[in-house]
């Protein structure tokens, strides 16, 4: 049992390191090659964990090689469009000006039902409203509605509201987050001054956000603010 625990710990550390090295991606945004690598990593790592007679080094060599290949091919893909197209495929336009491209659908081995279902998930229920629908390489659909069906923006209405920028959470759970402070337009001494002027000890702050216009929002722990 102790051996299993130690092996699991070693593999955990290695896998976390490798996954971090592969970069941040949501499961739904994985490219086909990344999905394959992710499945393979879990599969290869599980073998020595469930069977102590399998040398851990065998799995480690395979994991190192797979992750290295994945990173190197994606890096090579950045340099070459052709290679990227071979590895990841390319986006396919399935609707043009409200008309379904049956050939493209057939190429993707998708039915009209699959297309309609994907559109519904994008809140589009009328194919005729679609200017372009494109199946991306990660299997998701991107939809561009015809201008008359698009949501109007503030600019359409000639309204230009002030841009306050993004609020940065500079204090979380009673702790000043140095990295977020750096990302914001404030410096750490300014943030500390705001905290002092709020008369709330920093350890009692649940969250404090600041934006580029100087707007500050503070919430005390246990909703005492």
């Amino acid at each position, binding site marked *: 049992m102790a051996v299993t625990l130690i092996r699991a710990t070693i593999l955990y550390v290695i896998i976390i390191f490798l996954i971090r*090295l592969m970069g941040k991606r949501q499961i739904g945004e994985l490219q086909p090659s990344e999905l394959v690598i992710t499945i393979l990593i879990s599969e290869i790592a599980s073998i020595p964990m469930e069977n102590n*007679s*399998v*040398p851990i080094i065998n799995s*480690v*060599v395979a994991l*190192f*090689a797979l992750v290295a290949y994945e*990173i*190197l091919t994606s890096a090579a893909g950045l340099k070459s469009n052709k290679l990227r197209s071979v590895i990841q495929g390319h986006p396919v336009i399935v609707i043009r000006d409200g008309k379904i491209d049956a050939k493209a659908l057939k190429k993707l081995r998708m039915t009209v039902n699959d297309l309609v279902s994907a559109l519904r998930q994008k809140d589009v229920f009328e194919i005729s409203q679609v200017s372009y629908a494109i199946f991306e390489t990660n299997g998701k659909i991107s939809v561009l509605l015809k201008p008359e069906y698009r949501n109007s923006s503030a600019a359409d209405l000639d309204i230009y509201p002030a841009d306050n920028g993004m609020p940065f959470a500079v204090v979380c759970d009673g702790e000043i987050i140095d990295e977020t402070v750096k990302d914001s337009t404030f410096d750490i001494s300014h943030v500390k001054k705001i905290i002092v002027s709020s008369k709330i000890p920093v350890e009692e702050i649940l969250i404090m956000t600041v934006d580029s216009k100087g707007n500050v929002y503070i919430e005390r722990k246990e909703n005492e603010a």
Partner: protein
Amino acid sequence: MKRVAFALILLSAAIVIAVWSGTVFRNELASLSASLERLIDISEAESDEILKDETEKVVAQWEKSSKILHSFVLHEGMDTVEQNITSLPLLLKHSDRLTFRNKCIEAINQIENLLNSEKISIENIL
């Protein structure tokens, strides 16, 4: 760029580990096989005392090698070799020399099989 450098380091590490483990595996097993063959020769010509000493040396060599070999090869693959080699001192004590030699030959064959299973060949890769 940093990520690519890390990937190259990982790939190099994988290659180095694979080559190094393969070399260690081959050398250790070849040396064991040679010791077992020498043991067969000794069993045909030398006294009980010399044979006993040499057998103990081979068992000690196995115990030393098995530590590193177990980290490269499926433990099941090593079990039969281990059983044959570690049984040699008892065989020497309670059995005749022919049975002893047969056990040595069996161990040599199993080592040969292990070496063949790790060779870079089409049948092993496929």
